[in-house]
């Protein structure tokens, strides 16, 4: 009879009864505290149901509301009763009605018997711990909290602001250092009685009555005063989410809980039949002497909190719809956009596919249809090639494409002939890598067999669209990775530019560019531009092209392409 259990109960009495019998069967005496809010009938029935269990006492009932003093008062009364009634008890274990012993109770008794003077109570100073729900850490010890956080949230917040405003600070009595930690502890008789019988207890109680969530700090602080040996961890496995609410364990956590090797877990869903069945039946008592190992559970729950607070970037769905400025970027993975390259090179797409290993689409935002790679009519995720659907919500189209092809780099062509609605979204997206050869849209016009007046008209339009596009790309809030060359600049040293782009895509290609895309024949392009000028349309985006056709003829390369290693 070395371990006594103090149990706080407020609901699910059938489960509490089961657990009471389980503890008692192993010889542990219990003191039960039932919340004062429990209706008399339910309370009486519960008392009746455990009447036949030996060594069970009921302590004076207090009103227990989360975050208030009631929980501490309840614990105090129950612990007092435990120490008085059961003089053999050496360790007192604080548990709740929804706690479930995971290992045979005898193992816990042995474990504690080996450590007769150790107090197991998580206890850390506010500066050292990140768990601060509601942004109140140190402040919970120096402000007053007369209002309920749950029921009088407005008053609670206002009163906190008021105290901050007037710089109110309470004095902490006797220079104790506030500590916080899990409310589920296991203390030795010596420490516990020292706390409860302290002549200064009046002072401490008065102080902690106005502290916020005192059940997480009262014993945690005072144990530091008296304990000979503190192990700052809780023997109860208890995880809290970002709102400070306990995570709940269900039937499907059975294996996870087994492997944790923890002594007690909370909080168990009252209808988790399999868990209660598995852990409360007599286990083959192959006594393990392993230490509790909650590491795996910790990781799983940390990941869950992360998912709840940060989510998966680039995902838009019915329960995640980040407002425009909240999300860092739009998409989930980097992608490359090429403007003007297909105009300048005849086989750019197939060349890029071969060189980079990425998936290379045509003009995804082309006016007639979405030009997916290899002429596909649907892409991953059953994304349609219908231009109407795409234009109905271009942003959703882009986000979906990148999300659906996670793990495969996407490249596509863009140009002034395409739907421009998406350009701002792309410019703001840090995942976009946009490379532009400005003015290259003139090459197809130059090579076309159309009336010059039509060409002139279209050139004027395309130039206008592209210059607007460049303006957006150069604006201050652009976050995409942007490279812009004028066409004349680009054909001076095309390999250098291509090499940087391909390097940035960053797949394969360790040995430089083995193959070069084939550039269109630009003989006479200078004259073509001059003709446009002569007609009163001034093409400037492509840079300077002299009229003499010999000067920039990349086909008869006068020098070897410059390769970057």
């Amino acid at each position, binding site marked *: 009879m070395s371990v006594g259990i103090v149990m706080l109960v407020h609901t699910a009495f059938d489960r509490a009864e089961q657990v009471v019998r389980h503890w008692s069967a192993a010889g542990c005496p219990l003191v039960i505290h039932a919340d004062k809010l429990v209706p008399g009938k339910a309370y009486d029935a519960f008392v009746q149901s455990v009447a036949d269990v030996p060594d069970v006492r009921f302590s004076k009932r207090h009103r227990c509301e989360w975050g208030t003093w009631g929980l501490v008062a309840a614990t105090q009364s129950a612990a007092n009763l435990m120490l008085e009634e059961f003089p053999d008890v050496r360790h007192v274990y604080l548990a709740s009605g929804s706690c479930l012993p995971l290992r045979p109770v005898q193992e816990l008794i042995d474990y504690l018997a080996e450590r007769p003077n150790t107090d197991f109570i998580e206890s850390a100073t506010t500066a050292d711990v990140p768990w601060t729900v509601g942004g109140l850490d140190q402040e919970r010890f120096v402000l007053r909290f007369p209002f309920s956080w749950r029921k009088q949230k407005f008053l609670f917040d206002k009163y906190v602001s008021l105290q901050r405003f007037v710089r109110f600070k309470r004095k902490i009595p006797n220079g104790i250092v506030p500590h916080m930690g899990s409310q589920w502890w296991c203390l030795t008789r010596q420490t516990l009685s020292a706390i409860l019988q302290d002549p200064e207890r009046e002072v401490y109680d008065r102080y902690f009555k106005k502290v916020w969530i005192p059940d997480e700090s009262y014993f945690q602080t005072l144990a530091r005063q008296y304990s000979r040996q503190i192990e700052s961890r809780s023997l109860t496995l208890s995880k809290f989410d970002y709102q400070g609410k306990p995570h709940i364990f269900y039937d499907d956590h059975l294996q996870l809980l087994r492997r944790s090797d923890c002594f007690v877990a909370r909080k168990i*869903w009252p209808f988790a039949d399999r868990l209660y069945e598995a852990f409360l039946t007599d286990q083959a008592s192959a006594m393990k002497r392993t230490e509790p190992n909650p590491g795996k559970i910790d990781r799983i729950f940390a990941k*869950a909190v992360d998912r709840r607070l940060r989510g998966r970037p680039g995902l838009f769905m019915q329960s995640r719809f980040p407002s425009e400025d909240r999300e860092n970027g739009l998409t989930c993975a980097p992608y490359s956009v090429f403007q003007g390259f297909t105009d300048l090179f005849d086989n750019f797409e197939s060349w890029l596919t071969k060189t980079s290993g990425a998936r290379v689409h045509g003009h995804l935002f082309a006016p007639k249809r979405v030009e997916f790679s290899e002429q596909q009519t649907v892409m991953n995720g059953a994304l349609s090639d219908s231009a109407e659907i795409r234009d109905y919500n271009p942003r959703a189209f882009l986000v*979906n494409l990148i999300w659906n092809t996670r793990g495969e780099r996407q490249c596509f062509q863009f140009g002034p002939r395409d739907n421009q609605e998406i350009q701002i979204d792309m410019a703001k997206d840090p995942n976009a890598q946009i490379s532009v050869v400005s003015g290259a849209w003139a090459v197809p016009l130059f090579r076309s067999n159309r009336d010059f007046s039509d060409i002139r008209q279209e050139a004027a339009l395309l130039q206008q669209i592209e210059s607007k596009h460049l303006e957006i790309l150069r604006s201050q809030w652009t976050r995409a990775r942007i490279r812009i060359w004028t066409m004349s600049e680009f054909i001076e040293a095309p390999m250098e530019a291509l090499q940087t782009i391909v390097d940035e895509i960053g797949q394969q290609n360790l040995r430089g560019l083995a193959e070069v895309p084939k550039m269109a024949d630009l003989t006479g392009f200078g004259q073509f531009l001059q003709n446009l000028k002569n007609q009163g349309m001034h093409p400037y985006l492509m840079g300077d092209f002299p009229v003499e056709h010999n000067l920039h003829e990349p086909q008869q390369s006068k020098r070897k392409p410059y390769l970057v290693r």
Partner: protein
Amino acid sequence: MEILRNLLNAYRLRWKRRRFLFRAFCKRNQLKPVADRTAQILDDDILVVSTVRNELIRLPHFLEHYRRLGVNHFLFVDNNSDDGTREYLAKEPDVSLWSTAQSYRLSRFGVDWLTWLQLKYAHGHWCLTLDADEILIYPHHDTRSLKALVNWLDQTGRRSFGTLMLDMYPKGRLNDRLYQPGDDPFEILSWFDGGNYMIRKQPLLQNLWIQGGVRARHFFADQPRRAPTMGKTPLVKWHRRYAYVSSSHSILPRQLNCVYDEAGGERLSGILLHTKFLHTATERSAEEKKRGEHFANSSQYDSYYDSIADNPDLWCDRSTRLIGWRQLEAMGLMSKGNWV
């Protein structure tokens, strides 16, 4: 100014909601009780309310699925079935049934009737508003009952639960494989569109307007605006002053529509698997076209009805095969949030 406009909108919506409740009140006499077992409903029971018409083929699986999830009582309105639906439902021990021969469309597609039943019986209960071709799944649904879900929603202070409706379809033409009542429909309807959903936020009601899926891809590729709405909020901790606006896509008061996180996090959400495309869809489509009861301006959907009646093959080589909720969760079609 902004605040003023907001207040004005809130006030207008309040009256809109009252109008809906009043409509429901006026239509109450259209419902004739066939089997009233509502006395069985206990305090914490989870309810299903639904309007049905000729759904005999789906109901056995529907009832089985929701009973397994832990629904305690079903409230059905039978709208003029002639295939034995009424007789079938009247016999079920946990079903209360009303019948009406009035217009489905004029009852706001059955919503007025259901609003009345909810007002009367669902106050304080978690309540699912469903069609007979909607099968709800959510993270961990194979191991955790609806009760676990709603307890958790209660604990985290949520009153509504959002879902994406996922159109399921067979490989091959719709008529190719015949479905037998009681079978698992997803043996046949095992394919879906995995990543072509488009979302907009509705500024007034603040719900997400989700479109996409196979119907948008196949039937509405040239007029995507008309594509059906795929977002629903079917599970609500009901209050007698609540009212759905259009089907269960949006609800008033509008705070209930905020089932999503706007700061980048993910909330817990589920999926309604839609079993519309069983072999009966082709006949039914022809019939619905004739009745003109399913859309406000039905004639604009004639070509949609015609193309379903044509017995199309909806499958494409980028369709995804349904494996289970973990797959849907990983694909980002629903999220377990921090419910692990």
